[in-house]
């Protein structure tokens, strides 16, 4: 089966909060120096889901990423994991798009690639986390969508998807092609083998512009944006933490116990 996975390169979400800085005027985050961006967590799980399906059923995995040329790093990471081809979607007109704009560009690229049985996205990005590109993309492509997948199986030209809900899961069946958004319950992503890392390093990752994918400028016009960020702030949290001590950890624990017993 042929799978297309959409991945995004994001600021490392594990940076300590003290290093997290914003420009409130520009409503942008200032990337801390020396911290390389990473593949968005759930997108990496989507690549993993694609690799598992390929391991079982064969076929190809194509990865696309809307972002700067540097985003080739996350495409190459996906190739190292097991993807076959990758493309960067980059154009001045693609910068600061809202979810509709992003879904439109991804949709155009996916239509250009064509011949897919399944499109995978992460459930949400680790940065802005708008949590809607996948669903909008499915509407644009006119294919069914299943969100929050914890497992994906393919058989008889159908997809069987475990959708994670609060107190368990749903088992859903969808025709192909469909779009599925992947949650971390799918499991940990594989560590790329050395050979695959070498293959990925040598792989060309072509850049597609608006013209290459036939994206119309009217669809990318910021004046037509569906949503706009009007403010960005860092919440202040003021908690005084009382460090409870003792001669031994056990004694500190006993002292803490006395304090907690009074609170309840």
């Amino acid at each position: 089966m042929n799978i297309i996975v959409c991945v995004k390169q994001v600021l490392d979400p594990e940076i300590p909060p003290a290093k997290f800085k914003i420009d409130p005027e520009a409503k942008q985050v200032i990337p801390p120096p020396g911290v390389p961006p990473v593949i968005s967590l759930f997108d990496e799980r989507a690549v993993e889901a694609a690799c598992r399906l390929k391991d079982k059923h064969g076929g190809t995995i194509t990865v696309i990423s809307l972002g700067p040329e540097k985003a080739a790093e996350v495409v190459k990471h996906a190739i190292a994991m097991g993807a076959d081809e990758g493309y960067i979607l980059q154009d001045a007109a693609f910068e600061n798009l809202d979810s509709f704009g992003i879904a439109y560009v991804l949709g155009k690229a996916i239509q250009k690639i064509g011949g897919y049985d399944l499109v995978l996205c992460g459930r949400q990005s680790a940065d802005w986390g708008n949590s809607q590109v996948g669903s909008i993309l499915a509407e644009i492509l006119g294919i069914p969508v299943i969100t929050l997948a914890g497992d994906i199986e393919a058989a008889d030209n159908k997809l069987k998807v475990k959708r994670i809900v609060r107190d368990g899961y749903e088992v859903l069946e969808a025709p192909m092609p469909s779009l599925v958004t992947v949650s971390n319950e799918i499991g940990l992503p594989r560590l790329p083998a050395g050979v695959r890392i070498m293959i990925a390093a040598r792989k060309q990752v072509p850049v597609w512009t608006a013209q290459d994918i036939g994206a119309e400028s009217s669809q990318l016009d910021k004046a037509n944006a569906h949503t706009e960020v009007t403010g960005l702030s860092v919440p202040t949290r003021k908690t005084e933490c009382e460090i409870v001590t003792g001669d031994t950890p056990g004694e500190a624990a006993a002292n803490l116990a006395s304090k907690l017993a009074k609170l309840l």
Partner: protein
Amino acid sequence: MDSHKGVLVCGEITGGKLAPITIELLGIGRKLADELGEELSALLMGSQAGGLGKEAIAYGADKVHVAEDRLLDGYNSDAYTQVTANLCSKVLPAVVLIGHTDIGCDLAPRLNGRLGGGLAMDCQALSIDSAKLLVSTRPVFGGNANATMVSKSARPQMATLRPKTVPPAERDDSRKGEVIPIEDKIDPSALKVKVVDRIKEEVEGVKLEDAEVVVSGGRGIGSAENFEILRELAGVFGGAVGATRPACDEGWAPMTLQIGQTGKVVSPKLYIAVALSGAIQHIGGCLGSKYIVAINNDEEANIFSVAHFGIVADYKEVVPALTAKLKDLIK
């Protein structure tokens, strides 16, 4: 866009009653509608919807649209999207409010894709600005920052609201309103995804969301076996055990115990965070706790910045002693 008016709440029914999130949405929806000087309507779906129309009115709705169809018993993404999109195309609401729940997380973005509106997900505050636009405030970058968002021209303006962020609407049975049945039948050819099964995974003991005390473990716990040390502590309080995403990913705790941005949000009286660094994505799931206690051998761990009490030491030396002492004190 002047043709779009009013606030529409997409309701949820659980156990034959209005879901708590729906009563919360009716409360905030009433406020927003009053500020706009417009109507508040609600949509209820499922074979029990008709009987709950009056309830929704008592909680603040002026109009309740009810779609009573067996196909709508239990969430079906294709069917819910169809009914909701059709209603929105007909009544043209200015604002659509949906719960940030299993249903809303799926329905809202799809509905938005179909209607071409402007959607903010997982909001923690909603208001109306001087231009009568919906202002949605939501955490971004895993909770490191808050963003406010508006839709200047796209309609409807949509938001999913995180449960328990606003008080529930007050019930007033004397309120008057209108229950309007939706006559349109669901087009079965548009139902592409089949719901084969719904599996409930019961967790033993008290539910995480209901527990007064939650003991939570992270990457530092080291193994599934070591979670037993946390279960013993939780047991003293009759509390529940939770875990961070990395601990769940490792398979040390069931996924249903994941606390954080994409897991469960808890607000117990006491939250004991053990061997977890306090990633911002995790803190988002426990910040509503009355008291947070951190036990971690790294004094630089971020969890201490939100904790009220802390011990800097190896949890394996602390937690069993804490459990033993508390057993003596709490009887």
